[in-house]
């Protein structure tokens, strides 16, 4: 494996709410290597977004994060705002799910882009403008020149998402975290943005973390995937292994409920019955147990993440033994 760039270890994210504590992320481990393209998948509510927001210190006010997020020799969770600001937006870029609300309504697109260069590179004026145009071109923005002087509301959703991507790319980050970058867009625009990501990762050496609940977009873009359930990585491995031989019953269920994949990989699989767990009151032991048809007595203990062959691994007492798997 290539050397690690960003390592998440035992990450916990909790929210204080009026109805008690919500445990959104519960001991997540994930290692992101240099230039690696990794998909983080899981049903909505499985803690994907909050985990990576926590890495960048972007949790809502009522949230708190514990554990380790190692970047070089630093733990991002313990950094001061000031220190963190030298990393986010510069070495780690993030693109969010909803481009309609992710840009400041009263600032022109050009300003929202060039302030990134100003803060991290001290670039202003024509130099900054040049760089903005270059990146807008790279994300295939139509009429980039014109966009710089427009306000976000004058742009379509697809164009706004291109602005967001451009913003994240301005300083040539080492990691780009894209949180459901196409979910809020029209189907045709979705395909265009995905194609753009594909080209970007081929042209550049940056690592890509693609967060998605849609397994259909993973193949062809990412080489590795991590499957999250109830705020934990329950299976990880190469995309090919995961899709052909899932070791965790939840992964198998996810694949089964993705029509595009069913066609691609034959094997009809059952969809997942039941509901995602209540994050204020997680079941003891395996969080998937109430929905798992392979559960045994031992599943009342929390399963450890077990390495299997070829860098695949799963947090299941019966990994690879219940019928699916490596």
């Amino acid at each position, binding site marked *: 494996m290539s050397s690690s760039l960003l390592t998440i270890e035992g990450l916990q994210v909790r929210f204080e709410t009026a109805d008690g504590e919500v445990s959104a992320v519960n001991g997540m481990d994930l290692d992101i290597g240099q230039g690696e393209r990794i998909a983080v998948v899981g049903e909505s509510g499985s803690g994907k977004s909050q985990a990576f927001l926590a890495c960048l210190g*972007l949790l809502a006010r009522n949230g708190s994060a514990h554990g380790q997020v190692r970047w070089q020799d630093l733990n991002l969770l313990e950094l001061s705002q000031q220190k963190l600001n030298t990393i*986010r937006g510069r070495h780690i870029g993030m693109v969010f799910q*909803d481009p309609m609300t992710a840009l*400041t*309504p009263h600032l022109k697109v050009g300003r929202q882009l060039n302030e990134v260069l100003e803060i*991290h590179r001290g670039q202003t004026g024509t130099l900054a403008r040049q760089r903005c145009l270059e990146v807008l071109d790279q994300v295939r923005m139509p009429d980039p020149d014109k966009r710089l002087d427009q306000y976000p509301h004058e742009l379509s959703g697809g164009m706004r998402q291109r602005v967001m991507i451009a*913003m994240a790319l301005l300083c040539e980050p080492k990691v780009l975290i894209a949180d459901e970058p196409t979910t809020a867009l029209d189907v045709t625009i979705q395909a265009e943005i995905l194609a753009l990501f594909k080209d970007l990762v081929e042209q550049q050496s940056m690592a890509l973390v693609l967060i998605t609940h849609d397994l259909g977009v993973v193949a062809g873009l990412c080489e590795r995937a991590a499957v999250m359930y109830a705020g934990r990585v329950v299976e990880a491995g190469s995309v090919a292994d995961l899709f052909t031989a899932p070791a965790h019953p939840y992964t198998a269920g996810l694949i089964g409920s993705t029509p595009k994949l069913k066609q691609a990989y034959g094997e009809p699989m059952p969809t997942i019955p039941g509901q995602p767990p209540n994050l204020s009151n997680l079941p003891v032991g395996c969080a998937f147990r109430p929905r798992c048809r392979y559960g045994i007595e031992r599943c009342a203990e929390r399963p450890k993440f077990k390495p299997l062959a070829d860098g695949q691994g799963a947090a299941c007492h019966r990994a690879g033994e219940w019928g699916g798997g490596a």
Partner: protein
Amino acid sequence: MLNYAVRRILGAIPTLFIIITLTFFLIRLAPGGPFDQEQTLPPEIEANLKAAYHLDKPMLVQYGYYLSNLARGDFGPSFKFKDFTVTQLIWQGFPVSMRLGLTAMLVALFVGIPLGSYAALRQNSRVDYSVMTVAMVGVAIPNFVVAPLLSLIFGIYLGWLPVAGWNDGALSHLILPVTALSLPYIAYIARLTRGSMIEVLGTNYVRTARAKGLPERTVITRHAFKAALLPVVSFLGPATARIISGSLVIEQIFGLPGIGRYFVQGALNRDYTLVMGVVIFYATLIILFNLVVDLVYAWLDPRVQYE
């Protein structure tokens, strides 16, 4: 923009006309008349007076007279302040009320907005709770309690400031009434700012700004502040119109020759022309200030279009 402003002003004329009409008839429908309290008035003199003011004519005819005078900019003579026209009364008092009101509003803005922002940034801290408790009290305690207290403490007991009088708007004469007038506005604006700032700080675009690695100071001043001011601006339109049209309580307590008293006195005395005058004046102010608010709003938020 100018085009828009002119259209808005023209569009307000029907509104104004309806207000004028309603006020004209409502005040005349109220029991009693302008000369009722002066019981000693011999009947023939009262008849003469009524004739002089056209009060002996049918209401519709009076209405016609009033409108045609109004069209010429003539608000008519006051029924009670016998030697003055309504226009004279308003133009005498308005500079006082305006000076007092604008100063109080500026003070309220310059104190309320920073206070509210600060509380929002320190949400749920002790500072936040103190500011909000004081603001709550500020809104709840009425002027007629605060004004005499201030007057008593700083005017009489400590003797630092004059107790009453206008003295051409000298600073020393402004301080106490402006303080009393601005306190509830400071409190309200602080609360408004705090609430909207907290909301804006939770938006996705503020999260984006933070994800870029901008210092928190820049996030707030560049990305959050304008949006957080929008509710304050909306409040400011009608509030400014209200505050510069005078406060009866403050003007009475500090003995200031503003127009606040005309609203109440005019109505109590059934001084028909004076009531009409101040109502039209106040309505015009509200219309103008709402227009200003809309223009400022469009400047703060480019999504707002002039239609």
